[in-house]
């Protein structure tokens, strides 16, 4: 690779390799949408600690899980940071009759901590609170992109409350 001819051949071969992978394993069309959704948060003034996705299990194992996603499917998603993790069980929407485009989310914050929980979705925000056991429920969120903002607080013996560093999950599809 020391002269122009070789460089040209290398560029041309790399272009072929690129097309190979673009055919075999294309980036999802909505990848950039999720990135931009995640970046919106940077416009806010608060500094958040970003959690990482550590596990995602779709209850219907196997290749048809996505296609056969039914009202009985529950997806487990775990996020973790240095000092805190959040587990989510995403199931059918909690309203009656259930909305097929809605999801119910049961969440657990560990170690257990009271927190304000804000869900950002494609269509807006909804909010709930986690009790001192760290448990929270979002009865109905629209299917699609989801990101959770967690504002945990330490509740002192005398009932005093001290806010801790807030956390944000990466954006996931539910």
């Amino acid at each position, binding site marked *: 690779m020391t002269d122009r001819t*070789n460089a*040209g051949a290398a*560029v*041309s071969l*790399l*272009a*072929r390799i690129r097309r*190979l992978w673009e055919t075999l394993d294309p980036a999802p069309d909505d990848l950039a949408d*999720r*990135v931009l959704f995640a970046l919106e948060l940077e416009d806010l003034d608060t500094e958040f600690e970003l959690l990482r996705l550590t596990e995602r299990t779709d209850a219907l194992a196997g290749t048809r899980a996505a296609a056969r996603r039914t009202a009985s499917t529950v997806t487990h998603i775990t996020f973790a940071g240095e000092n805190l993790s959040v587990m989510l069980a995403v199931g059918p929407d909690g309203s009656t009759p259930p909305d097929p485009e809605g999801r119910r989310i049961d969440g657990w914050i560990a170690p257990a901590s009271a927190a304000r929980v804000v869900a950002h979705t494609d269509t807006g925000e909804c909010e709930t609170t986690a009790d001192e056991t760290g448990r929270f429920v979002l009865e109905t969120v629209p299917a699609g992109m989801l990101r959770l903002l967690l504002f945990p607080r330490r509740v002192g013996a005398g009932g005093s409350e001290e806010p801790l560093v807030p956390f944000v999950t990466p954006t996931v599809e539910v």
Partner: protein
Amino acid sequence: MEPSSSTGGRVPKTPPAEQPPAPERHPPAPSEQPLWQQAEELFTAWRAGDEVAMHELVRTLSPVLWHVVRAYGLDRDSTDDVVQSTWLTLVRSGASVRDARAVLRWLTVAARREAWRVSQASRRTRASDDEGLEAVLPVADSAEAEALLDDEQCRLWRLVHQLSERCQRLLRVVAFSERPDYAGIAGSLQMPVGSIGPTRARCLTKLRTLIETSGGLA
């Protein structure tokens, strides 16, 4: 936004023009502005306060980062996650990227580091988990892969698979992260074309030897 003298350079995801069958002697004509240069302009514009430029940068480079991260064997969900956190890191530390010309490289290096870290962590936790292994393969088997490819691509695919895992990974990373810029970078920044790096050059040479001994691609 700085004035852009070129036309068509800003169009994201423009598929590269079809190569003539055997032009191995000449670098392909630059049908568009090199990626690093598009990235530089958009990043500079964003730092000057143009929010839309960041959107365009994300749309242009996220697919590149996807391939860079997937090359490390991460599953699709983890890849999504790494791509997101790479962008967040850039936005948070944008000021620390001293040379806007290096923003493409900054992003791909950050994505590679994180991909490597995540791949090592998941290797530890599921060393014997078949499902984990399967999840990283883009297609279930080679028959399925070959059904998606034309004849020439099929031949290339089989030859690429004869390389070591490390070479396969490096070539995928190089093919996306530094495209098609050897010629461009070498020309405009006076860097030696050989700066591809000795290991990558060796992998590329191995692949070319395989192609030659198999009678060529097209």
